[in-house]
Each structure stands twice: as C-alpha cells, then as structure tokens.
C-alpha cells in the first residue's frame, strides 16, 4: 500500500521528529506526538487485536482512556514490557515496540476464532452453564483451556525494574481535567495568588477536546490559540501546579484524592533518576471535576469490525494527529456532535456520508451545515449490519418508514465508520465521592446531583456540551463571572439502545461491551433468565467489567435492561462506580515499599557479631534475632542440642536486647504498677525484681515480664519482644484516660539498652573481673535482685534473673556499648567454655523449666489460673486491670483448659505444635478435642522430647494417657506436670 494515511499538513505531531515504532515486528513511520493508536492509523492499520471471548478481529474504537478494544503489549526496551496497554493512551517514541494480544498462532490466523462460530456456547453466564459435568473436569480440563483461550495479555516474567514514588500535596482547589471547563475553572480559582490550585489531566498535554477542535472560535481566536493563551496564563502563576499525564483515579473521604502521574513511559531514554510513576495524595479544600464525557457506540450487528470507531475519535485522529482513519467514511449517528466530525473529515478531503437515525425535522443547525458542505446525509436511516471481516468494507443501512420499521437494505461501501449514540457524562469521581446521581431524561444520562463533599462538577461531566457554556460553567465554579463568545457546538442526540433492525436477527452479534464480548442478545437473555438488578446483570454477563469498566458500554446496557424490563432507567439505577477510574500500576501503590524497604528491619547492637559468628536469623516481628549458631556442618537440631547442653553444663550467652523495655517513673509509679499488673508492687524494695503478669480488662493475659524497682519512684519494666508497643499503648491508655491524676511518666527504652543474658553456673565467675562496684555474692545479690553500677567502666543495670533455670544475669548496657561488652564477656568466658545460643535454644531451655511464652502458651483467652500462675494474682489488692473479670462466671467455671506437660510414649517423637488432643482416638468423627500442644521440642538435657499443652481440666489429668494427632495418625502421650528439668529450682542459686 503506497498511499499515505497521513495528511500533508496539520495536527499537533512534531513533523521535525520522525520516529519508527514497531507493530508485530513491522516498522511503522510515525512522529513524536503520536500515540500508538495514531501511529497505527497513520499507517492504515485498524486491525490490532482479538477479542476476549470470541477472538473476533478488533480495531481501535476510541481516542482516549475509555478504549475497550485496542489493548497492546508494549515493549519500551530496557526490560520494560507491559501487557494490556490501551493503544490510544500509549505515547509513541522511537523504537517503541507494540504487539497484538490474545491470538495463536498469529493476529491474522487465529484458531481461537472458532469460538466465534461456536457463539451459542458462549452466551451470558456460559461459565455457569456449560462446564458443569463431570465435576472433576472443571479444574483439570475446562478451566485450563478456558484460561488459555480467553483473556488478555501475558504477564511480564521479570520483576518490575522501575522505581515509583509517592507524594502528598495540599491545595485550596483541585481541578480534575484540563479541557475547556477545567481550564476556565483553574484560571478563575487561581486569580487569588494565595489560593493554591492543582490542575491535573490524564492526557499528554492540557486542552481536552480543544486539542482536536480546529473549527471553533472563542472570543475571536481559534480554540487552539485560546488554549495557548490560557496555558501561558496558568504557567505564569506560581500558585498553580499543572500535572499532565496525571489521572485522578480515586476520590476518598474528606476531599482526599489520589492521582497517578506517569513520568517516564513516554520517554525513550528517561533520566535514570526519574521514577516511572508518582502517586499523589492530594487533600483539597474543594474539588472541581471537569472530567468530560464519553461517546456511546451504536449497537448494531457486527458493529465491532475494525475500522468502525467513535465519531469524535475520527475527528481527533484527523485533527490532532493528521492521521487518516479511512478514505471513504460513513458517519452513523443518532445525534448532532458527529456532524462536526463529518465536516472535519470533509475538509480534509475525504469522502463522507452521514447516516442519521433522526428525521430531518429532529435535527438542528448541524444538518444544514453538512448539506452546505456538500455531504450526503441520509436521515431516518438505521444501520442493520456491516460488510468485511478484518476491516469494514461496507455499512448496511435501511431507511425507516413512518412507523420506525426499516425498509430495504442498502450497502454503503466504506473503509471506515464513525458512530455516535450520544454522550455519557463521566460522573465516576463525583460518584466515588459519595455524591448522588440524578437521571436527566433530556440528556438521557446520569448527572451529578447532591454533593457529599466539597466538590462541584462542571462542563460536559454534568451534561453541558456547548463550548461557551462549558467555559462559563468552569469559570463560575472557579469563582469568576467570566463569559466567552464561542462558536455554537452541535449538541443533542436521540437516545437509542440498539439500532432498529428488520426482523429478529437471531445469530448476529451486536456488541454492547466490546472488551468483554457482551452482545445485546446476552443482556436480553440475562433479563429473560430473571436478572433484574443491574448489579446482577453486570456480574452475570460481565458487561462493564475489566480494564475499561464499561466507560463506553454502561449506558447502553442500562437502557437495554430498562427496555427489556419495561421500566425507566432511574428505576434500574446504575452500577457502582469504583476506583480506579483507569488502571493504575501496582508499583505506584507500593512506592518505595518493596524489597528491603517493604518493612523496617530492627537489629540489635550485637547483630553484626552474631552474623560474623555464623548465626542464622529468624524474624520476630520486625526484629532479626539470632536463631542458632551452627558450627561446622551442624543442622539446626544439632546446633540447638549443643547450645542447650552448654548452658546447663557450662555457661551460655544470649542476646536479649529485643525485650521491650519501659521506664515507669514518678511519685505514683508504684501505684500505677499496682493497677496495671496482677501482682503487688507497693512493697517491692528498690533493688528487687518481680515477674509480673499483665491482663486486659477481660481478665486474659496480655503480656508478662520482669520489672525492677531501681529507686522508689523508678521501675524498669520489661515486656515480650513483640509486645512492647502494645504494652506501652495499653499503659498510656489507662494513664491518660482513666487515671490522669497519677503522676507518672512512661518512656520507651527498648532501643536505649542492649541486653546480654549470661546464663549458667559460671556466670558469676565471668562477670566478677569486669565489675568492681557491685557485690556479686549470693548473699549480697540474690536471685531476682537488681543493681546499678559499671561493667568495665560502662554504666549498667544488672539483673539477677533467669529464663533458663540456671544461675543467670541480664546485663543492660547503653546500646552503643552492647557489642563491646558482649565481646568482653565472650572473651572472658572462653576458659569456661562459653557458648552463644540463639532463640531456639532459649525456647527449649525455658520449656524444660515450664516457663510460658505469652502468645505461644496463651492465645488471648487464657487466665493466670489456667497457667497455674494463680499465685501471681494479688488477691488482697482492691483493683487492677482485669481483676473483676477473673470472677466472671465463664472464667471461674470448671472445664477450662490448663497448662500441662506431655510425655510421648515414643521419647524420640517430637509432637507438632498446634496438634489436637483427644481422650479416645477410636471415637466417631467429629471427635471431641480437649486441647492442643503449645510448645514441643527435643530436649538433649532431659534426654527425650518434651511438650507443653493446654488441656481441658489438665491439672486433674496428671498421669492420664491422651492421644495427640500427628501426620501419621494418633500417638499416645502422658499428662505430666509442666516442668521437665530441675523441678526444685536449685540451679538458680548455684
């Protein structure tokens, strides 16, 4: 084909910058300023893809973000490949590579097209009807085949190489849409230099419809000149932020609007520092919505042939891109606006015929204008079909008689059709803001009604289609009374659901929703099958779903459903408008929160030491904790066995820095402690520690830990690793809201202190040479005492505590000294065989002693008595948080689960944590489960496996044999006291 489909002059393309884009490998000459769609059309290409279900040849329908058909796989080079891009919004650059989707083996020859012939199988709801039997065939046979045959593009295989950023912004006025109404609104709203205005628009440049309006005059200048002047004015105002390529896609509470700004997709070689996209979160004083409207396709048989487009889109391709959609064009319309397209096509020297559903008497000034321009107009004509397969070659039309019945068909030869079934205001954002919609019968559309937030719709998104009226409307919303004189626009249309057709065109496909391959027949079938709610019709037929969300199809569907039900559209209502307005990449939502930045990582002062010594780490909340320290070719079991034995035979070193730490200070500190913990604190002497339990008000255990009274008015409280923020918040809540009279300060000191746990019979011997100002003797510094002093000249808070059952200390030093002191202890401990141990060994050691871990033995429904810790409840205390609930009927009732130990019949068997427990494994299913395993380990020190469990009435079942589930069936275990090692606790005082 040698004839050019590019007009010799005009358009907003940059003819000084010729580029090459590739389509399915074929190089196509284009210019900067082209979109993928205009580049294709300028090379005579309409057929660009296969449809979702029937694999029908499809072309480019529209010129904007509402495009349902022309979805392309786009390769921008540099490992940037992305499926399902609308060709109409992809900006062309040199080297851009485009591919069609959803066909095999090729676009022209697609075996999937057989679906088109099997159309009767793929009617509305075919998923629910066709593949019912045999049931096992669904996952194995039907679904894989359907998934492969249906669908859109191919997901990229590699990780997204791009960077995404996010930004917050505030303004007095946010204007969404930079068409004539939006520009006028922004100009007016920004007149006050103190009023911050953000103007965003989804296109590559502001202007909206002005970008392809070559005929209108505004205040004596061309639309293009008016646009240039308006932009110069806005650009000169420092209080105005203009965001092009930026889609307002979500409208949330309190005028919070999310914008997606696309920064590099249109660039061949973007600067490496640029993010691909930027997510804006704007909080606006008020919002002016100037989001425009969408043209409706006409519904007639085979209306999906490549070359059949929306009429306004023809106008856009001709005027903005100087791209020729066809040489012999038929405009099929039920309204006035398409005449503007016809006139522009005629001016470009193309052959144009207008087929208008309306009678001549119902037409306006557009009719005479067309006749005057020498265009043949066929009023009172319907479209009943098309010719051609991969490109339209003729439009079958028929004159309507006085009763509206079509007469003899007539074929109008053509290579392009522009259709227009009227306009639908883009009320998406108004609706998202929870604003009400009202149906306007004259406009045959839903328009914005009552606003729920401080927002206003202006211009054609509220049904104002005349250019001068749009500008005045925008200006008024922006706070100005500006009016302009402009060329009268061709407005008005006759609502039509599907074009009148001769008889029942049983086997034809007249598409309503192009993207989902939904035909008028499908919608009618759904109604016949009893679907009356529009939301149900949507889900059953899939109309209005997928990437275009029915921008071109929704009103036609609504109207058709209303007609079928014999109701009015307002009685049907509309489907919910949900965000995003157009597809938004996941990358922009994630922003910087990926990889290492997905979550903060907390590490202890001794982390690097542990890493150097080969530790394997486990995640505990945000913390990285040393899990075990394998040496040689040890696996975890071997390492843990060695570490746990070393602690009991010699001495072990453990990083406990992650423990939550809170300082409770002030004259009422002891009283506060008394009210927060179950046990009594008033009489605890300074220099002593106590293990405390903390309940929620419902009486269930919330956290535990050792707290030390350093001075009469200062407590050093420890919490579980994961519980620190929760405990501080809990304390603050009561302090601020229930007991504001208490003079207490709460300070998180978790990060300030490194904690080194030194556990084992040599612990004192190792510490002694490092400490001169604390008497370490048993008499002077007994178990559960605390001293402040210095370790190797570094201030320390020294706790004599043990979570292992061995003689032990927890050495708190300022975090910056943590690794240095750890090293000193490690070096000094060498002659005692000191062994660093990790969290797994810590768990085994504490389980050997039956020490609980909150969150492992407890699950939020466990009381102190359930754990056998009733002695920690200060019964003499008048009140503490949770006390009253310990007397609730269900808490004091018999039959609660209690903490016990389990000894498996097979000592080598380690039970699964979480395994269920029954009394009789032979009882009928469903069995009565009486408890579950909470902790389970192989214990080298005990010489067998050990387990803790919560069992109904567990303390009465000591020595009873129970049965525990395992992957291989039930196994027997005997209930024992929950302590497996040194039950007398003599080692604590070694």
């Amino acid at each position, binding site marked *: 084909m040698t004839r050019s489909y590019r007009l010799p002059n005009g358009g907003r393309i940059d003819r000084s910058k010729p580029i090459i884009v590739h389509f399915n490998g074929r190089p196509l000459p284009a210019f900067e300023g082209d979109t993928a769609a205009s580049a294709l059309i300028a090379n005579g290409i309409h057929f660009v893809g296969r449809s979702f279900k029937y694999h029908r040849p499809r072309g480019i329908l529209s010129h904007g973000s509402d495009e349902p058909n022309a979805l392309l796989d786009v390769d921008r080079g540099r490992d940037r490949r992305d499926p399902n891009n609308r060709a109409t919004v992809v900006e062309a650059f040199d080297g851009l590579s485009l591919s069609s989707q959803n066909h095999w083996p090729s676009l022209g020859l697609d075996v999937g097209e057989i679906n088109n012939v099997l159309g009767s199988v793929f009617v509305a709801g075919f998923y629910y009807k066709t593949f019912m039997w045999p049931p096992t065939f669904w996952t194995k046979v039907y679904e894989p085949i359907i998934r492969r045959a249906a669908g859109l593009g191919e997901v990229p295989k590699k990780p997204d190489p791009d960077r995404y950023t996010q930004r917050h912004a505030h303004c007095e006025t946010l204007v969404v849409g930079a068409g004539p109404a939006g520009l006028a609104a922004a100009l007016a709203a920004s007149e006050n230099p103190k009023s911050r205005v953000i103007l965003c628009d989804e296109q590559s440049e502001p202007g909206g419809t002005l970008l392809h309006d070559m005929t209108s005059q505004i205040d004596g200048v061309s639309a293009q000149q008016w646009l240039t002047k308006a932009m110069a004015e806005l650009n000169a105002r420092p209080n105005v932020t203009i965001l092009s390529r930026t889609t307002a896609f979500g409208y949330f509470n309190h*005028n919070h609007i999310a914008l997606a700004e696309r920064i590099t997709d249109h660039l061949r070689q973007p600067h490496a520092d640029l993010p691909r996209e930027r997510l804006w979160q704007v909080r606006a004083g008020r919002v002016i919505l100037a989001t425009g409207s969408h043209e409706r396709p006409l519904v007639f048989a085979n209306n999906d042939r490549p070359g059949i487009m929306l009429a306004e889109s023809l106008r856009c391709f001709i005027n903005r891109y100087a791209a020729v959609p066809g040489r012999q064009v038929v405009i099929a319309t039920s309204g006035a606006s398409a005449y503007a397209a016809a006139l522009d096509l005629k001016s470009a020297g193309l052959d144009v015929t207008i087929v208008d559903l309306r009678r001549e008497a119902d037409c306006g000034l557009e009719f005479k204008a067309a006749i005057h321009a020498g265009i043949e107009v066929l009023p009172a004509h319907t479209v009943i079909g098309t010719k051609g397969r991969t490109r339209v070659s003729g439009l079958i039309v028929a004159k309507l008689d006085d009763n509206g019945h079509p007469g003899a068909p007539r074929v109008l030869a053509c290579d392009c059709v522009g259709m227009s079934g009227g306009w639908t205001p883009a009320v998406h954002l108004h609706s998202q803001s929870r604003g009400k919609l009202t149906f306007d019968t004259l406009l045959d559309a839903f328009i914005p009604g009552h606003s729920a937030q401080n927002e206003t719709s202006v211009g054609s998104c509220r049904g104002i289609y005349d250019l001068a009226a749009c500008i005045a409307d925008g200006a008024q919303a922006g706070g100005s009374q500006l009016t302009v004189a402009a060329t009268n626009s061709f407005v008005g249309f006759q609502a039509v659901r599907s074009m009148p057709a001769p008889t029942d065109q049983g086997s034809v496909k007249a598409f309503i929703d192009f993207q989902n391959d939904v035909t008028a027949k499908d919608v009618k079938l759904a109604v016949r099958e009893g679907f009356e709610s529009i939301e149900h019709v949507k889900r059953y037929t899939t109309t209005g779903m997928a990437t275009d969300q029915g921008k071109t199809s929704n009103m036609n569907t609504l109207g058709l459903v209303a007609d079928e039900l014999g109701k009015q559209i307002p009685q049907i209502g509309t489907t919910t408008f949900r965000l995003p307005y157009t597809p938004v990449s996941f990358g922009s939502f994630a922003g910087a929160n990926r990889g290492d930045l997905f979550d903060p990582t907390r590490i202890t002062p001794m982390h690097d030491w542990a890493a150097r010594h080969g530790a394997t780490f486990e995640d505990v909340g945000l913390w990285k904790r040393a899990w075990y320290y394998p040496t040689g070719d040890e696996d975890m079991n071997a390492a843990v066995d060695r570490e746990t034995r070393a602690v009991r035979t010699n001495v072990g070193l453990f990083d406990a820095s992650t423990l939550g730490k809170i300082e409770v200070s002030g004259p009422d500190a002891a009283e506060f402690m008394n009210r927060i913990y179950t046990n009594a604190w008033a009489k605890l002497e300074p220099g002593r520690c106590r293990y405390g339990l903390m309940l929620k008000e419902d009486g269930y255990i919330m956290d535990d830990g050792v707290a030390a009274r350093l001075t009469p008015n200062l407590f050093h409280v420890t919490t579980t690793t994961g519980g620190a923020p929760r405990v501080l918040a809990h304390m603050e809540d009561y302090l601020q809201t229930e007991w504001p009279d208490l003079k207490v300060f709460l300070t998180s000191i978790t990060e300030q202190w490194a904690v080194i746990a030194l556990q084992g019979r040599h612990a004192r011997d190792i510490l002694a040479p490092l400490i001169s100002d604390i008497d370490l003797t048993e008499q002077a510094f007994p178990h559960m005492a605390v001293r402040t002093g210095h370790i190797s000249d570094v201030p320390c808070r020294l706790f004599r505590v043990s979570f292992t059952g061995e003689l032990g200390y927890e050495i708190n030093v300022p975090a910056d000294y943590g690794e240095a002191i750890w090293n000193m202890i490690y070096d000094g401990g060498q002659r005692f065989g000191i062994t660093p141990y990790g969290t797994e060994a810590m768990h085994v050691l504490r389980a050997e002693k039956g020490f609980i871990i909150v969150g492992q033995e407890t699950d939020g429904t466990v009381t102190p008595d359930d754990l056998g810790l009733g002695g920690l409840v200060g019964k003499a205390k008048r009140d503490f948080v949770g*006390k009253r609930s310990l007397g*609730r009927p269900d808490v004091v009732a018999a039959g609660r689960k209690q903490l016990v130990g389990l000894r498996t019949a097979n000592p080598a068997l380690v039970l699964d944590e979480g395994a269920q427990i029954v009394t009789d494994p032979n009882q009928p299913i469903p069995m009565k489960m009486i408890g579950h395993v909470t902790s389970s380990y192989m214990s080298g020190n005990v010489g067998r496996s050990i387990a803790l469990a919560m069992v109904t009435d567990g303390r009465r079942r000591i020595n009873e044999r129970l049965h525990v589930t395992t992957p291989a069936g039930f196994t027997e275990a005997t209930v024992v006291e929950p302590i497996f090692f040194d039950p007398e606790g003599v080692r604590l005082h070694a």
Partner: protein
Amino acid sequence: MLLINCPHCGPRAEIEFRCGGEAHIARPTDPSALDDTAWAQFLFYRSSPKGEHAERWNHTHGCQRWFNAVRDTVSDRIITTYKSGEPRPDITTNTTGER
C-alpha cells in the same frame, strides 16, 4: 482517608491515628462492687449508632495522646474533636457539604 483534627497537633491524615472504640465509657471506680451483669455491660456492650458517634482516637504516629471525636457513621464526617476528659460537646448536625 479521613482528615482528623487532633486537639493537640491540628489536622492530620487518618493513617496517623488509631481508633479506640466508643468514648465516654468510664471504668468503674470500684469494679468489685458490680455484679456480673453490670460488669459485662461495661466490658462488652457498646452502642453502634447510625449517625453521630463519640469515639476514642489516639494520635499513634504523632503526639500519642488520646482524644475524642464525634463522627457521623453515615457520612464518615468527623464533626468535632475534643480533649480526653472534656464532656461530649452539644452539636447540632450540619448536614451541608463537608470539609
């Protein structure tokens, strides 16, 4: 995302806050004096009105202080905020567009 006016810090985005449920439910001064029903009432029972609802909010990622807010549960509009300990303000609902 709501815009919440912390009485101590000013208007901030909702992500900085945590909601703590219904406000103005004082902890009984002597819980032991309450029978099971009365205690259960305090512990578990909350109103869930359609319309104005006084709620506890904590400015978790800000000043960390608790305060109260009256929120319209239908429109999600926060009508007013006030410091913890202050009485619930007497409000006549403004049904016009919200900020």
